[in-house]
């Protein structure tokens, strides 16, 4: 497993949560704060292993909840629920296609806040909900969908620039060369 990729993903999650807590611009311009953790989870589920998915779900969820009024740990399960099915089916997903990344990002960005709100309401919490919540949800879906291909490009570029390069096996192998002649060389 490429440890650098895990560190990079967790560092991005940390910065994403910090940015969500400090940048007021999305809330002022769009009326909603965007969440990039679901999009990052899609990248992780398609490109990293199970330990990284588990780490992102746990640490990303804890970081988000620590800076929010959410009960600690409530954001862990939605992130895990997004990551696992994608990880299990990742061989069937055309992960290099930006459209596939866009759709997965949209679905993840829709599911994460919905599941978190469901958990909070199940726990008897009173949330700030109304018709405006629908708009905020749409904004989160749209921004998450658009951000996912960018996250893929950014993370791949960082990985190429800073991480270990995978050893490429040469196509030519002497022992598999087809002998065209009966004569021994």
């Amino acid at each position, binding site marked *: 497993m490429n440890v650098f990729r895990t560190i990079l993903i967790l560092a991005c999650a940390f910065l994403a949560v910090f940015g969500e807590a400090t940048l007021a611009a999305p809330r002022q311009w769009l009326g909603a704060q965007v969440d990039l953790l679901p999009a990052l989870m899609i990248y992780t589920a398609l490109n990293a292993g199970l*330990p990284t998915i588990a780490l992102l779900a746990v640490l990303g969820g804890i970081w988000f*909840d620590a800076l929010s009024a959410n009960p600690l740990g409530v954001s862990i399960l939605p992130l895990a629920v997004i990551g696992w099915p994608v990880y299990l089916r990742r061989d069937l997903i055309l992960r290099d296609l930006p459209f596939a990344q866009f759709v997965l990002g949209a679905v993840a960005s829709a599911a994460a806040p919905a599941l978190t709100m469901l958990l909070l309401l199940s726990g008897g919490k009173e949330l700030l909900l109304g018709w405006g919540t629908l708009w905020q949800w749409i904004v989160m879906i749209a921004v998450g969908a658009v951000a996912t291909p960018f996250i893929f490009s950014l993370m791949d570029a960082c990985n190429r620039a800073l991480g270990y390069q995978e050893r490429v096996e040469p196509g030519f192998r002497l022992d598999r060369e087809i002998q065209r002649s009966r004569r021994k060389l």
Partner: protein
Amino acid sequence: MFKQKNYLALGAVVLVAIILLSLPSRATARLKLAVGSWFLPLFGLAGAAQQLPADLADSILPRRELLKQIDYLRRENQQLRSQSVQSVAIARENDQLRALFNWQRQSPWRLKLANVVMRDPANWWRTVQIDLGSRDGVQTNLPVITDAGLVGRVSSVSTTHSQVVLVGDPNCRVSALVEDAARDMGVLIAGGTLDTSLVELTYLASSANLKSGQTVITSGLGGVFPKGIPIGQIVDSRSVEYGLYTDARVKLNANLGSLEQVWVLFP
């Protein structure tokens, strides 16, 4: 498809979530504050980065502009001094009258300035964090205001930071009264999800004669907010529950969408 290691990893994540969610609230609060402190270096960097343009602008301000500002501040200082003298006389008179009627003396509130360092990343809460903590004497439920009006109350405190739940959050209900002839009282609850400047004033008397523009202040009931802090102004009102009581929309004086500095009130 679903191998044993998948089960183990998923089980571990679920277990961590369940353990965290079932922790006692005090332990959760401590853990949250400990994890939140990991972000402190970044908050420091962000604060310095925000301060840099202001410092640069200050350093290139022309001398004429500075002299103009000094002149304006001197005049304002003189005005405030004369007002201070008047208020001292009024306070003395107030004390004498209180002594005459044997009324309990009100202790004055102290103010401490705090910077807003972050906002709640979730859309379903309305909270901010300020850079004053228990080392500065901050406790839970202290009122937080700006020069425009009420902002909210302190909901949790760490050593260096505190969380403030803002007016309009479901966890911040304020007993308020309308400054009209009848002094109608109600409870301030959450308002719109998109517009942070509007909140709902509910449980007003059905006979309340509310007009747009009337001032709403804290009533002092409930023991958290002292009486008389300006909250906002009535926008409109409507009768609800077949005339059982009246609801009104209140436009907040404080701009909660762009809070930078707030005052914490100490008793």
